[in-house]
């Protein structure tokens, strides 16, 4: 499945539901579908739209879903210049706890089984194993 999403934060919810509802029943446990996938994909999309698409609806974020036998891979790619994820501070450190922003990628990493970035840094691949 492939979806082109305009860089508009208002469509994140709808895009997430489209992907979640397209997965065959039983691919993921109810909780992982309801919480892990939805939350991680929403975070990835919001980041792609805000930072890659600069919230410009003319810029597109591409979502591509790959289904393996026991695995779901979701690729989210934006039209931005990319970034280096290793530069992000740990939002759980005491000195960062009261920051308003900076939790999206951290949350996402802890909800899926694997996260990979493309070389440019404008694409992320989320892997969720069955169960």
């Amino acid at each position, binding site marked *: 499945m492939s979806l082109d999403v305009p860089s508009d*934060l*208002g469509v*994140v*919810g709808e895009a997430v539901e489209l992907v979640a509802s397209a997965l065959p029943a039983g691919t993921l446990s109810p*909780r992982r579908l*309801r*919480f892990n996938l*939805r*939350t991680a994909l*929403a*975070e990835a999309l*919001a980041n792609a739209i*805000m930072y890659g698409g600069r919230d410009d609806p003319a810029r597109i974020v591409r979502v591509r879903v790959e289904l393996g036998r026991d695995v779901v891979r979701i690729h989210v790619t934006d039209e931005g210049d990319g970034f280096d994820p290793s530069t992000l501070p740990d*939002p*759980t450190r005491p000195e960062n*706890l*009261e*920051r*308003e*922003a*900076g*939790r*999206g990628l*951290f*949350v996402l990493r*802890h909800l899926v089984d694997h996260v990979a970035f493309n070389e440019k840094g404008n694409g992320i691949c989320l892997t969720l194993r069955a169960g």
Partner: protein
Amino acid sequence: MTFSLKKDKSGVVVVGVDGQLIVGNRQELKQKVLESLDGGAKKFVVDFSKTGYIDSSGLGVLVSLSKKIREQGGELRLAGLNEDLQTLFELTKLDTLFAITRTADEALAAF
């Protein structure tokens, strides 16, 4: 409407979040709470008993509001988190920043 505000008899503002608190509606919550704060309210409970989903932007606006309310001598408590939302707060260690109760009534009683 996603956010409802009502004052209990002791002046605590209870904010109900219906559905979700996300990047697309967090500014609306911020505006409503800050309006109440500017109007003199000091104690707030955000009731998540009807909330299915909060994203990191929603978490961020709660952090920001908590700070602003404390700066004005007030207090913000959270209530009614389901299992998923509780996990989110624990993951991000925000359960150490907020006073969280099981129900809004418990939060009100704790003031």
